[in-house]
């Protein structure tokens, strides 16, 4: 029994064991806490960076399969270890700094781009009490920290002194700020329902996964996460057919690899955030109570599913034109998420006599209202498309294509 208890609560037991060993060495409590904290930070950073090694092979294989080609298949097994020779190649490449570049800023940008991506991991919950730091402003912290990413891109572009990089910097302000607004509005709807901004509290409050309760917010958040992580079809900052590689065009070797790492660390973080906010985080049909040892794997599984969705988007959609991308945010996502926010505000105020039924009644009302809004949106879009079909300009284009 004791053994099973140990296995089922492995992570908390591990934490207690490390604490006991350190105190056993005769260290004072503050030193024990300090060492335990440093170990925790190391684990979180390693998880973040390990995401690169896990998700690059996944991305290449999955997209290859979707595009009906084998993908990398040389490095054993099935090309899954392709990331290792790639990393060695990166490390051995020459480090080039352009002659007219601002040397110090050029160096600063690759460092600054990774820091916010890793800082986000501090508040992502891996299980009940398995979290770096359960801040009571957790979600706001994530949003605030991620804005430093924009700054890093601006510094990279400026420090490179390259026209393509500068064009990319003009886009970053437009695109990332535009998509931050609907993203915050959809998070706000979740926070209204949970009445807390702590990521742990949001998971605990989800009796129903919120993508069932508020599908609109979930959809808006997914689209914004795609844009914020700068992934195709929204990768306009580095659109290779227009801007070569955008803000990272002058970077080579390990400094380029830092941008690459930051992209995957970001992608994994927003996948975890999406599963925390909308897919129930570490909850999985009561399994989190039966076997707490499995909660990190549940989170990982859900995050992998979200990343699979992102790859699916990438393989399916062509890159959007820039004005369409920004217009899509301001004219479609922002009004939609505002409507969703108003609905959430009304739904949480519905009085329910029995507190046990509260999430079900309020969630049900919210879900039905969301479905009505989705149907109305689809109807409006369909009508507009039909009107455009008859527009003379479009007719000319269609005729020319034929």
């Amino acid at each position, binding site marked *: 029994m004791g053994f099973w208890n140990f296995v089922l609560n492995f992570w908390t037991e591990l934490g207690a064991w490390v604490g006991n060993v350190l105190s056993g060495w005769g260290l004072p409590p503050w030193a024990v806490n300090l060492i335990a904290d440093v170990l925790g930070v190391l684990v979180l950073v390693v998880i973040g960076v390990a995401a690169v090694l896990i998700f690059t092979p996944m991305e290449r294989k999955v997209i290859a399969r979707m595009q009906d080609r084998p993908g990398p298949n040389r490095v054993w097994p099935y090309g899954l270890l392709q990331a290792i020779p790639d990393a060695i190649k990166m490390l051995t490449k020459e480090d080039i700094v352009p002659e007219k570049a601002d040397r110090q800023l050029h160096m600063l940008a690759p460092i600054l781009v990774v820091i916010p991506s890793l800082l986000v991991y501090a508040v992502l919950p891996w299980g009940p009490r398995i979290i770096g730091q359960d*801040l009571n402003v957790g979600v*706001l912290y994530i949003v*605030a920290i991620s*804005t430093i990413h*924009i*700054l890093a891109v601006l510094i990279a572009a400026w420090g490179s002194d390259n026209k393509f990089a500068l064009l990319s910097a003009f886009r970053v*302000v437009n695109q990332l*700020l535009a998509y931050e607004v609907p993203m915050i509005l959809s998070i706000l709807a979740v926070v209204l329902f949970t009445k807390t*901004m702590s990521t742990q509290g949001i998971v605990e409050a989800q009796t129903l996964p919120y993508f069932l309760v508020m599908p609109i917010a979930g959809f808006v958040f997914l689209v914004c996460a795609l844009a914020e992580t700068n992934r195709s079809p929204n990768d306009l900052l580095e659109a290779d057919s227009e801007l070569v590689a955008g803000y990272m065009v002058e970077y080579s070797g390990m400094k380029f690899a830092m941008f690459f790492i930051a992209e995957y660390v970001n992608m994994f973080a927003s996948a975890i955030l999406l599963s925390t906010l909308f897919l129930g985080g570490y909850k999985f049909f009561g399994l989190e109570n039966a076997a707490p040892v499995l909660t990190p794997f549940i989170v990982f599984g859900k995050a992998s599913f979200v990343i699979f969705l992102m790859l699916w988007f990438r393989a399916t959609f062509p890159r959007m034109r820039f004005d369409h991308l920004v217009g899509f945010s301001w004219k479609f996502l922002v009004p939609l998420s505002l409507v969703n926010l108003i609905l959430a505000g009304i739904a949480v105020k519905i009085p329910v006599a029995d507190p046990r039924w509260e999430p079900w009644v309020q969630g049900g009302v919210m879900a039905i209202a969301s479905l009505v809004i989705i149907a109305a949106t689809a109807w409006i879009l369909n009508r507009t498309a039909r009107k455009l079909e008859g527009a003379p300009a479009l007719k000319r284009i269609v005729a020319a294509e034929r």
Partner: protein
Amino acid sequence: MNVSQGVFILLSAVVLIGAAGVVLHRNLFRAALFLILSFVGVSGLYILLEAELLAMVQLLLYVGAIAILIVFAIMVSRQLMSPQFRDRNEQWVGGLLVAVVLFAVLAFILLQVNWPTAEAAVPEDAIAQLGQALVEGDQFVLPFEVASVLLMVALVGAVIIAREK
């Protein structure tokens, strides 16, 4: 001296170095980066005061929005970065005067006011209380709504100015 005092001195040094960098650095882009360093230091001070919400809003609004717009504006106006650009104009006497007077007034106030210190710890639900206070009829609902109307006016004005004729 305890730990929080040490952290305070460190953060104050960051804020002051950043602020000095803003006025002393000749390269405008770097001056803007120093401004961001100063903002980050201020948000650190808020965390030290256990005002996490304020710290996050400081990061989100000042670093995430205002500073980035400043950096963006500097990048767009190339002229600012040329070596011929003079960093003072004919109004420097007036500017100096205003700065000295402002500094004198602030220093006077800082020395005069008997700063009250709260003995009680920050309550657990401080953020919830703040949210309640902003929408409660007998507290801050009027300033809150007036501020939102002001923002709305600015938003509509910006759209009207930017709209193509």
